[in-house]
């Protein structure tokens, strides 16, 4: 039985078909007490547990998941990773995340298929090019790769876009981040779970947190559907349901739950090499390793917990797809699904302490939860281990709206439903 994954191990198993692979992660019964309990077995929660164990030596940790691990947004996104952020509080955090992505498969000994195929964001007028230039310059000045492309250069890379005179918004140029790309999303949850489990973290599925044990302003555990679990510290990482879980701890947050739909076509042979985004309307597309074109657009635009979207949003996204890349018209959509995501008034997240001692919050990820996963786990683990926010997430504080320190990366204003 090979615990370590490698080509060699795979060959050994191939030669001896009866040799079973070990379980990727153990499923122990919950203990009555842990040093740290993480509420939420999604990408962020599992990553937090892993880095608590790996970076801080805190291995007496439980991750408590209501359903199965990875059942939330880590398995319901368009798998993009990038670090093209220009607002002070964001840039370093997301670049740290991208750097962690780059070494993740090795670090976890689990191939997450980190594919740095480059993201190309298309501009539809010169004003947009100036806005992109600011972004790209900021990235370069922070040691992040970025390139401006003119229309001719874009056309060479993406000849199948609508370059005709019929195009509603002609393509004017683009900004590219070559190191951006995609990751096999489910593998992230599984990889972190397996690696954390190997370090002693307990992963407890089918266990719902029903309350927090809070006395004298201090949190000392959680009530669950499988009984009380005491904890030295508790971290919440339940994007999509943050308001609900925070309410159990007596908090009301600058968060609304919105549905973001995603789409995949039938598998076809490789045709789209890069991640492509459009400046006319929010639209982004890439081709998975399996061959499907994976794409998405805006949130539906009103808060909901139903994981099903409205058809007019589906149309909007299909119109974008066909108008930008007319060949897509003849391909067929296999599935569309919705993820419930936390939307905040400025489009930026929270990784911070809360008014309750020993209770920590990770949420409010808006569109960017997936790409943030490694850095989120890394910094949240630090924040919990040291009872102090990691310097990369200084600006992801809950009180930023009170202080007038919004992190509005795209300048969309304080509407959750427009961010």
């Amino acid at each position, binding site marked *: 039985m090979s615990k370590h994954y490698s080509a060699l191990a795979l060959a050994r198993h191939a030669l001896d078909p009866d040799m079973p692979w070990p379980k990727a992660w153990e499923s122990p019964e919950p203990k009555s007490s842990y040093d740290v309990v993480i509420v939420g077995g999604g990408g962020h929660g599992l990553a937090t547990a892993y880095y608590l164990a790996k970076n801080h030596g805190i291995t007496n940790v439980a991750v408590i998941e209501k359903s199965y691990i990875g*059942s939330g947004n880590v398995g319901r996104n368009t798998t993009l990773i990038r670090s093209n952020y220009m607002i002070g509080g964001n840039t370093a955090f997301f670049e740290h995340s991208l750097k962690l992505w780059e070494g993740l498969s090795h670090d976890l000994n689990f191939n997450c298929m980190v594919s740095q195929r480059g993201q190309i964001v298309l501009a539809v007028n010169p004003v947009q090019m100036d806005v992109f230039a600011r972004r790209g310059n900021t990235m370069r000045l922070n040691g992040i790769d970025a390139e401006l492309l003119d229309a001719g250069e874009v056309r060479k890379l993406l000849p199948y876009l609508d370059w005709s005179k019929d195009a509603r918004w002609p393509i004017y140029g683009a900004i590219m981040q070559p190191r951006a790309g995609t990751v096999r999303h489910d593998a992230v949850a599984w990889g972190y779970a397996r690696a954390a489990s190997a370090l002693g973290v307990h992963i407890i599925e089918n266990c719902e947190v029903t309350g927090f044990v809070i006395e004298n302003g201090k949190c000392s555990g959680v009530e669950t559907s499988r009984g009380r679990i005491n904890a030295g510290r508790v971290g919440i990482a339940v994007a999509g349901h943050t308001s609900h879980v925070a309410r159990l701890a007596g908090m009301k947050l600058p968060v609304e739950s919105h549905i973001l739909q995603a789409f995949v076509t039938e598998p*076809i042979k*490789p045709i789209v090499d890069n991640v492509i985004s459009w400046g006319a309307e929010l639209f982004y597309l890439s081709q998975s390793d399996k061959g499907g074109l994976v794409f998405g657009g805006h949130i539906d635009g009103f808060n909901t917990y139903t994981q099903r979207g409205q*058809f007019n949003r589906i149309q909007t996204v299909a119109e974008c797809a066909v*108008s930008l890349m*007319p060949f897509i018209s003849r391909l*067929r959509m296999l599935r569309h699904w919705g993820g419930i995501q936390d939307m905040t008034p400025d489009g930026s997240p929270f990784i911070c302490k809360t008014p309750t001692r020993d209770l920590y919050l990770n949420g409010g990820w808006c569109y960017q939860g997936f790409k943030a996963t490694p850095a989120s786990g890394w910094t949240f683990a630090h924040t919990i281990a040291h009872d102090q926010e990691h310097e990369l997430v200084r600006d992801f504080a809950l009180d930023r709206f009170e202080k007038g320190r919004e992190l509005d990366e795209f300048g969309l204003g304080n509407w959750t439903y427009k961010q």
Partner: protein
Amino acid sequence: MTSFRRLSTGGRIARNQPVTARFDGKPLPGFTGDTLASALLANNKVLIGRSFKYHRPRGLVAAGIEEPNGLFTIGEGARNEPNVAATMVEMTDGLVAKTQNAWPSPNFDLMAVNSLLSPLFQSGFYYKTFMGPSKGSWMFYEPFIRKAAGLGKATDLPDPDRYDMRFAFCDVLVIGSGPAGLAAALTAGRSGARVVLAEQDSDFGGSLLSGNDAEQEAWRVSCVEELQSLPNVDAFTRTTVQGLYDGNLAVLVENRSRLHPDPAKGQPRMVLTQLRAKTIVMATGAIERPLVFSNNDRPGVMLASALRSYVNRFAVAPDKRAVIVTNNDTAYDAALDLAAAGIAITVADHRTAVSADLLSRAGARGIAIFPGSGIFDVEGSKGVTRVKLGGAHAVTIECDAVGMAGGWSPVVHLSSHGGIKPKYDETAAGFVPGGFPASHFGAGAMMGRYGLSAAIAEGSNAGASAASHAGFGKTRPVYAPEHATDRSYAILPSWSPPQGAKGKAFVDFQNDVTIKDVKIAHQEGYRSVEHLKRYTTLGMGTDQGKTSNINALALMAEYRGITIPEAGTTTFRPPYAPLTMGAIAGRTVGSHFRPVRRSPLHDWHVKNGATFIDAGLWKRAWYYAWAGNSPETAYVKEMELVRRGVGLADVSTLGKIDIQGPDAAEFLNRVYVNGFAKLPVGKVRYGVMLNDDGIVLDDGTTARITDNQFYMTTTTAQAGEVMSWLEYLLQMQWPELNVQVASLTDEWAGMAVSGPKAREALQLAFPDADASNEGLPYMGCKDIPFDGVTVRLLRMSFSGELAYEVHVAADYAISLWEHILKAAASTGIKPYGLEALASLRIEKGHVAGLELDHRNTLDDLGLGKMAGKEKDYVGKALRFREDCQSPERWSLVGLELMEPDKKLRGGSILFAATDEIKGHGRGYITSVTWSTELNKFIALGLYKGGLKHEGEEIIAAFPLKNEQARLKIVSPHFIDKEGARLNA
């Protein structure tokens, strides 16, 4: 070797209408009424493709939409469409089909080497390898994996076809036209309700189309005829209900591909209907399940019901002998019909006891039955040659085909699109709807109630209930044909195959998922249904697991030692079947993608050589041919015209709002930070609005036309937002204010007459108007009659020059514009475009879109002093949040380029002279222009600490082009700080 052949009689094919398709470059004959699948079988093309991962030879499995293997590329060139199930393609002349995922051909596929490596390719293998030797190694392996993956090849040419979208409404939507659906539609139709019947197949009848009973056929025909005679019933074939959405919105897609529609004649290839139905009857039937056994993917192994469809509907059958393996009674329908067509049939029945009735009927047809037996293995590399049975009768049978009858899975997809999970029904041995909202009904096999008379009775009831729910009480039921009987659909569950066979036993054909893969997923802990699917890719193919999901779930339940319902079910998401993207997008693509908004002067701009630029939805005149052909230089000429003479610009895109009522002044006083209560009639004022968060929302001007009437302008970009915001405040928050607002953006055209000679030009154009400083002072406004039309003159300036805006009803815009140009020709007046407009305002230090980006406070933009100290206004409280008042915020500065040989660019990052050039800097450049006044590049920007640093030399960095330049911070008012020109 002949395995399948066309029978000389029978079937629903039109033998008098032969058609020929082209298949892999060669003619493929068939008849109208054939599908590509039936034509392939009729021509003995049994091996028709290679599997996804192992490149194993594959044949057709099904006769309907659930087909996992028979995927082809249909059409060629720009009309190339990959991965189309042959079972859903109607044979026509001119049809072109190609095999895919095999090289050089399905018969001899070099990629079949993968099959030898199959032990390596077990589920999850790629998560365990391709990681070395270095961090980025995946990038080396990935292209090979990508090339191997994917099914067919897409074209990268634009789709030439047209897709229509329409809206429709009905009282009762019936989905599916099998016995239950026909009964439901007819019962509902007889009530007078507006009924839509949607059938995905090319004809009505569902399972009846695969039968061969004359009485049932007569019943079907009479139902269809009556339905077609009812004016209140719309019945559609080739129309798939792809999804149900909130509010009973059903999305129907009709496929007209077989007609080879001509887009130039407005003929759509597909029509998507957004149907709002008051009530919905689902009569979507059931899909047969395969059985899992060694080499169950050999070409020629198919569903028993598919064999029955092929023989009865298409007159295509196995050449001599077929083996049918079953765990239930329904297989005998196929067995009897095949035997009736002269095919020798052997039935291997998992059950030890078979009913006497079946035994005697089978015996009469010479069918050999082996009870207590199943299939141990299937032999034959490119088609079935032999079957080895296991169990009670371990015999070997030479045969051409195998039919699998593993029980039935109700088609519950649509019932769960609304969020209600299906539930497992032991009797039906499958998942049935977990419930319905009040307006939804189910009938027939999709409810897990099989059998003809039951389906018809239930359909009739459902139709009546649905009509009644929609308000139509009276109807007549539909009765089953006299001899309809109900066969038992009970199965003997036996999910695992017999032990010992060496071949792969497939659970999901399309994605090459075997029973071993399910085992591995279980071993490794990927045990929840979603983990199983995601880890093995089971059910993720184009067939979305229509044939595989239950078997996989049952196997996992078996390994875990729990029941199937405990193991769970997967969520069914739309679309029901692969849905063409073009059909969803409809006509809203290409130039129709989003509406173009055109100024009332647009046609003039076109005729007079304007180059246009997109600004939101607007097409705006960017610069004019008289000034040159390059956007880099033309605007400079146009700026010079305005600074030295007079220019005319189209400003019709500004938002314009009529505000009337006794409280109009109070209203404006609340929404603007500066005072409007005391604005005199005949005066205009610049105003700024904040959002509730204290951040700048928009700026603009408002003129007081009468005591109770104001004329507001907004920025072009925010016009819609501001209008909605004003309506919101009035309707929802301030009902005490008696004010009415109306958008005038489309009613009024606006043109700016700007430059030192503006007054002269205006006077020439409107000789009767007093344009003197006294008659129309700076920030004055008045309406004048001109040629019987009201013209509104507003003396205000965006450019900093002496300027007027002339507003007129849009119908007269071109005429008035031409009049001004002609009447004032002696001043040298010419048009100037958006680039010059935007550049002139930079010289004057006016903020615009790039500065009004929802991130800046009044003080950031140097407008803090405008706000009334005593008065209340929207956003006042949050304007004074701690950080919003910080003196270190990035705020508006003017910038002059100090190095004349360099160029200044928007989006440059600003640094102090002594800073290291890295990080986020101290600000950035928002807008840049060449200044004709200063003869150098100037810019507006935001800089930490703002004008505290006036006079300092700083650095603009543009690393994307490896550029740096020295700048000086100056007042953003580059010209005429005292406003002498404005007041001239």
